[in-house]
């Protein structure tokens, strides 16, 4: 049955949300322009609020409808059909929700709606109307993206509530039967079936949504000519946006590290860059804002940067959703034909925001006084400039596909491509940005806090951190020279290491010296330590990432260009140990996930049946000592992913551990391999499968060889010894579906493999004088054994054996030294941000009255004490 009600309800909710956003934007704008405390303003405001509340309810309605469509497997809707499937666990249904463009817009809309409510409650009389006008205006733009209305040739938005029959009007199924409902969906992209994909998108979109808040305050400040007081609420919100966006980005990086197989956490993919750019600018904006609040400088820069950061979020949206990246990115969204609409919005916001800024430019107060080079603000300002340059560099390169599209639009054919070696290209600049940031964050912080204790000499503040930096740098370089850790001899890397250490120690000095008495204001120092640690983590894990799976077999296809070509993948035959780095590595078999069992189960222990999500246990399946399933039980399995058991044994210490890199052959996407990672204290060992024998290709069996044997006889096949122990009643009746009158026997055979002994039970059955044979396959050995014939009179048996190529995998393995420092640094940075938010929020509450006037003396003094 096609359920059109829920979709209609959803669609009407979208329209309602759109209309109420429009009403609310207009009404808040009028309220904002009306004279204060007049009945007129009050009326506009209550209308606007009412409209916004209805808007929020409508947004919840849309979400409810869409989730219901997914949750109830309503495949008459295209969204459910293309993003979900019957076998998807509930927590991944949440990921389906935002796998598509429409759902992710919806997620963004949802966060805006919530933040809007918070602002109505807490922004205060002065700010509510102008800020919410901006907010509602943005909501208008976002809801229109999922409107799904077609007027003539103009398509406005793409509705998530479109029915299959309306989406695929050409499909013959729907022409025959419009009420046809597919039985199953096409499923969620397997790479997104990861717990980080449940949490990463909401965090990222909350970051996007939060970036709007300081932007809205900046616009409101320009609009209402409140050039100074907007900075107070904008600071806490800006910090909030920066930490959420930053954490969102790093979650994405961690997901990529765990799930994708490009060998790292950051690939400079345009989609990653598109979020990194606004984040850098946002952090820059926070720094100029702090400088402004301390010494009334850099206000114009603050306006520019907050406005730019939001515009860059819009630009990121345009890049990733318009299809303009095309071949340049592996994971941008599908093009929904909305690029025109997206571009219109982007252009509108750019023109409006920059227009307003230019219009008010002369009115924005700027100081004529010169900032001293020994003041913290000066270096903070320089730091912001460096961050923006870093963002600019990524922007210029990431936009290369846009230049081509633009030139094509005006009729000039261009053929510019992204740099061939993107990582080298970006690293070249970003490493220097890292060095500059580390250097400035140390120096800037020391100078910033020095003012607190007047009279201390410059040299005193710098002495201790410099000594510690020198000592530690020397120590690390010494340890590296002695070979205990990676050998650091690249001068730029050494510089990055030293400056990062300097940043750590100068901020530690501040933490212990100046801030000891007041931990609550230490957020900045903590965040900077986190950033410096992240830089060190990146330096080691990326700069010294070391591929250990070098092909040492000496067998190469062709030596066209000598031996200097990297051969980074190694072939592992099943059960044959191969040397790799310090390890002896053995590929031992294929495993599957079985519901209820914590460990993976060897495929040889499962008999697969027609329903691919079920299998029959061929022996007891245990969790430790507890037997959960006995032979013959039906178990639920996840057939998509195969886990390849790979044992690593250290040749010196004999310590062994097992990794299970996984791969699945997806009908739509080919081989999807995800790594498995072993974490050591000083490094990660990261391995993934690069190629497997194509599972869809039939195995090529060698010629059948027949052996006449008696019980107790031995057969030699391919270096293996097989013994026939006896003949018994067939036990594996499951396979045969035996009926009364049928006769079935099985051979009891033993095969000695390299590692262990295998039991084989090929079956010979007779039903209605027809002979049936069920062979037994020993995948480990590449053997298939068949009981061909029985001669009861002579007591002789004919055993047929085929051999095939043994199973293998091609593996890539690399070591990532000290990657944990990157994750620890991320946590510390986030902690620092949170401390800063708490502190500035409290500060905003207690000092709210003092900032009313522009640059009043009282304010400055207060802030000097607190900054």
């Amino acid at each position: 049955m096609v359920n059109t009600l829920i979709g209609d309800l959803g669609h009407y909710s979208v329209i309602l949300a759109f209309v109420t956003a429009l009403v609310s934007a207009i009404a808040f704008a009028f309220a904002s322009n009306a004279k204060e405390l007049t009945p007129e303003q009050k009326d506009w405001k209550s209308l606007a609020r009412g409209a916004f509340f209805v808007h929020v309810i409508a947004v919840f309605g849309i979400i409810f409808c869409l989730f219901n469509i997914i949750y109830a497997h309503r495949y008459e809707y295209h969204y459910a059909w293309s993003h979900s499937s019957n076998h998807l666990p509930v927590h991944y249904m949440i990921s389906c929700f935002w796998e598509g463009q429409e759902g992710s817009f919806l997620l963004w809309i949802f966060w805006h709606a919530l933040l809007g409510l918070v602002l109505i409650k807490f922004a205060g009389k002065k700010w509510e109307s102008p800020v919410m006008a901006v907010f509602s205006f943005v909501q208008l733009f976002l809801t229109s993206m999922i409107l799904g209305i077609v007027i003539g040739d103009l398509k406005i938005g793409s509705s998530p509530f479109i029915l299959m029959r309306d989406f695929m009007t050409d499909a013959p199924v729907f022409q025959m039967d419009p009420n046809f409902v597919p039985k199953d969906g096409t499923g969620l992209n397997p790479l997104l079936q990861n717990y980080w994909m449940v949490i990463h998108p909401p965090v990222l979109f909350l970051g996007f949504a939060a970036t709007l808040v300081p932007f809205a305050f900046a616009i409101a400040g320009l609009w209402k000519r409140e050039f100074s007081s907007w900075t107070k609420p904008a600071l806490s919100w800006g910090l909030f946006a920066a930490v959420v966006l930053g954490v969102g980005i790093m979650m994405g990086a961690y997901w990529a590290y765990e799930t994708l197989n490009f060998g790292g956490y950051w690939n400079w993919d345009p989609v990653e860059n598109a979020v990194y750019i606004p984040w850098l600018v946002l952090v820059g904006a926070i720094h100029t804002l702090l400088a402004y609040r301390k010494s009334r400088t850099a206000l114009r820069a603050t306006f520019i940067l907050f406005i730019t950061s939001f515009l860059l979020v819009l630009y990121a949206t345009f890049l990733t959703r318009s299809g303009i990246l095309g071949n340049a990115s592996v994971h941008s969204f599908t093009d929904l034909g909305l690029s025109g609409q997206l571009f219109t919005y982007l252009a509108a916001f750019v023109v409006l925001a920059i227009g307003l800024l230019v219009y008010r430019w002369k009115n924005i107060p700027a100081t004529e006084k010169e900032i001293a080079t020994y003041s913290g603000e000066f270096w903070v300002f320089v730091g912001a400039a460096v961050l923006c340059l870093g963002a600019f560099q990524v922007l210029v390169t990431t936009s290369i596909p846009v230049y081509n599209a633009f030139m094509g639009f005006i009729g000039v054919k261009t053929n510019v491509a992204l740099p061939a070696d993107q990582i080298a290209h970006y690293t070249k600049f970003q490493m220097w940005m890292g060095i500059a940031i580390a250097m400035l964050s140390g120096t800037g912080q020391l100078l910033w806090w020095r003012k607190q204790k007047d009279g201390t000499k410059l040299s005193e503040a710098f002495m201790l951190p410099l000594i510690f930096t020198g000592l530690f740098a020397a120590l690390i370089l010494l340890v590296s020279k002695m070979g205990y850790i990676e050998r650091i001899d690249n001068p730029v890397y050494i510089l990055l290491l030293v400056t990062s250490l300097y940043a750590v120690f100068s901020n530690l000095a501040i933490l212990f010296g100046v801030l000891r008495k007041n931990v609550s204001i230490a957020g900045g120092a903590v965040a900077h330590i986190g950033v410096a640690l992240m830089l060190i983590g990146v330096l080691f894990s990326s700069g010294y990432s070391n591929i250990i799976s070098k092909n040492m077999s000496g067998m190469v296809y062709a030596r066209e260009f000598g031996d200097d070509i990297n051969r980074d993948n190694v072939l592992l035959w099943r059960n044959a140990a191969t040397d790799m780095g310090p390890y002896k590595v053995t590929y031992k078999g294929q495993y599957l996930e079985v519901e209820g069992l914590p460990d993976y189960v060897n495929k040889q222990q499962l008999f697969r049946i027609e329903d691919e999500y079920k299998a029959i246990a061929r022996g007891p399946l245990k969790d430790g000592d507890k037997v959960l399933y006995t032979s013959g039980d039906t178990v639920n399995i996840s057939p998509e992913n195969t886990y390849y058991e790979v044992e690593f044994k250290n040749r010196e210490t004999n310590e062994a551990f097992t990794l299970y890199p996984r791969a699945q052959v997806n009908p739509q996407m080919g081989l999807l391999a995800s790594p498995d990672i072993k974490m050591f204290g000083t490094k990660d060992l990261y391995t993934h499968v690069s190629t497997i024998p194509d599972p869809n290709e039939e195995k090529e069996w060698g010629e059948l060889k027949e052996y006449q044997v008696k019980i107790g006889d031995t057969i030699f096949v391919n270096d293996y010894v097989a013994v026939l122990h006896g003949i018994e009643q067939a036990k594996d009746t499951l396979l045969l579906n035996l009926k009364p009158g049928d006769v079935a026997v099985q051979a009891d055979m033993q095969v000695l493999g390299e590692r262990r002994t295998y039991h084989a039970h090929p079956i010979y059955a007779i039903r209605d004088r027809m002979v049936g044979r069920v062979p037994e396959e020993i995948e480990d050995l590449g053997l298939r054994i068949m009981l061909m014939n029985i001669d009861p009179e002579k007591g002789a048996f004919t055993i047929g054996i085929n051999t095939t190529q043994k199973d293998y995998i091609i593996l890539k393995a690399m070591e990532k030294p000290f990657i944990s420092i990157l994750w620890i640094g991320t946590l510390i940075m986030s902690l620092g941000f949170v401390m800063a938010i708490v502190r500035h929020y409290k500060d905003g509450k207690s000092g709210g009255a003092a900032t009313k006037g522009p640059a009043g003396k009282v304010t400055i003094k207060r802030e000097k004490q607190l900054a």
Partner: protein
Amino acid sequence: MKRIHIIGILVIAVAIMIIMSTASDASVYVPFSEAQARAKDGDDTKVHVVGRLKKDEKGHIVGMKYDPTLDPNYFSFVLVDTNRVEQQVVYYSPKPQDFDRSEQVVITGNMKENVFVADKILLKCPSKYTENEVKVETASL
């Protein structure tokens, strides 16, 4: 001149440097003929080439060599560029699994002697994320 102006000039200088460096790092999409011409001039910069796999009348891919059991890091195939020029390409990595189904292939690399050595392969497969066919067999159920 104020310090802020000095900073401004420095920022602009770095920005110009970034743009210029990006322009020189940026690669180009070229046909094989141009890639060969570059190699002749001793220019070993890496380029992008867009093409399709060479196929016979039956649609089977021709000229593809990959034997992981012999050398997992050697994959060779023939690519036909947009000007219908054929070229042998060598890729010193395992063969991408969905390679056979790809409609369009973008390779990055340069010519070395008579072969094009690719260090990156981007595949464009039909309907990677958006499947527009419903399995009709379910209709009979």
